């Protein structure tokens, strides 16, 4: 196993040479590329990457340009994860047959996908990869909507959010179904590591990514990625929104080891916890919730977030 890259602080991290290039066509202020950079810079090893169809894929591979400085493949909407799994299986086979040209190099296999390609369309494929035990990492850039095709709801879209296929208006408050708990679903495959990360907590993120690359077996990472276009906020506020999402505990940061051992990795102090109302108020997609008739939903939101936080704490304490 090659040596892990040492990243003690941000200054040390900033000496990394980016392997993801500018002049991609992601929106100004898109969190996708912040997450991708933090993942790619966490290691110095060779990378074998894929991206499922989604914002990241269409914006970084606009013919004749590519923004990736590593082996990168795109096939379809659903099978980004299996493409990498296949490459990993071949790598393993060639290694056993001692036919690798550079056997001392230790490539890492990472597939990127949006929430649409992970929670809905590619679900079966990812589940297959996790179950077969490939030595790979799947990173979800969770922006809670099909942002690339115009903001349709996905099964990651939370209650009350206005999406183009579940719009808020006179008769509806928008999306009516709650977001599915993908980290728990993936953890229940018994995989060695699954975690939820956020780009603002870069140190936590790098630690989790490095751990994920070290362990033998499939790893699932869910990264919150605020979308300026579909969440409807100003591009400059991307980091503010990420802060709000982690500090309001809407996106608690935790990891699940071997499918059962849950650790909360970021625990804001009691006085630093932001009410969910502030998180909702910062986004245009929840604007209608502040009308009198829908105010009860904000209360329900807060209760749901509190209940989830209590649940995670209980799980951490009980070690189950």
């Amino acid at each position: 196993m090659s040596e892990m890259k040492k990243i003690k602080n941000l200054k040390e991290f900033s000496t990394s040479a980016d392997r993801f290039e500018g002049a991609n066509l992601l929106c100004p202020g898109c969190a996708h590329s912040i997450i991708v950079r933090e993942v790619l810079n966490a290691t110095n090893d060779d990378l074998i990457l894929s991206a499922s169809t989604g914002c990241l894929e269409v914006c970084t591979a606009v013919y004749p340009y590519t923004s990736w400085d590593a082996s990168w493949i795109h096939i379809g909407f659903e099978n980004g994860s299996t493409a990498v799994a296949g490459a990993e299986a071949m790598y393993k086979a060639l290694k056993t047959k001692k036919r690798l040209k550079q056997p001392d190099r230790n490539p890492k296999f990472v597939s990127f996908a949006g929430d649409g390609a992970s929670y809905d369309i590619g679900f079966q494929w990812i589940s297959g990869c996790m179950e077969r035990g490939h030595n790979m990492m799947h990173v979800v850039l969770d922006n809670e909507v099909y942002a690339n095709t115009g903001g349709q709801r996905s099964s990651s879209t939370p209650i009350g959010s206005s999406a183009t296929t579940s719009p808020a208006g006179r008769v509806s408050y928008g999306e009516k179904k709650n977001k599915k708990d993908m980290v728990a679903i993936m953890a229940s495959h018994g995989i060695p590591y699954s975690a939820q990360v956020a780009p603002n907590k870069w140190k936590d993120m790098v630690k989790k990514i490095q751990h994920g690359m070290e362990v033998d077996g499939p790893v699932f990472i869910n990264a919150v990625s605020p979308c300026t276009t579909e969440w409807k906020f100003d591009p400059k506020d991307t980091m503010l929104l990420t802060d709000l999402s982690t500090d309001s505990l809407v996106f608690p940061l935790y990891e699940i080891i071997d499918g059962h051992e849950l650790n909360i990795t970021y625990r804001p102090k009691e006085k630093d916890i932001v009410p969910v109302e502030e998180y909702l108020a910062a986004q245009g997609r929840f604007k209608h919730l502040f009308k009198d008739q829908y105010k009860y939903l904000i209360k329900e939101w807060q209760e749901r977030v509190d209940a989830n936080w209590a649940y995670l704490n209980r799980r951490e304490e009980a070690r189950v």
Partner: protein
Amino acid sequence: MANTGWDEFEIGAMLRTFEGEAGDIAGTLQEDRKYTENSSFSASVADWRIEKPIFAKDYCIDCQFCWIYCPDMSIISRDKKMIGIDMDHCKGCGICVEVCPTNPKSLLMFPEQADEEAELAQWPAKETKEK
């Protein structure tokens, strides 16, 4: 390359980012890499900008917050020092200004046509907290 239509290529087109052997990319800084014209590094999105960031070196404490949170790899940091902004790839989102912790800020957004030297000469003074 630029004049070739999308339908003139075979299915499963492969793009090479570097001339010749890629070698150790993670250990090679951008200025030392041999990019081909297929890398988006050789393209520019400067015309997307309405506002541009201007960097005042005097106030910078090299915390690297702008480097880590820049979505467009446009903050150039070398040897743990922030040395400037890559204006070919900056889209003018303004995240770097928001995350800058210094007082006064070492990065501020100005209209695209603003003159850098004139703005640097009249950089805002330190804000004092009222008690």
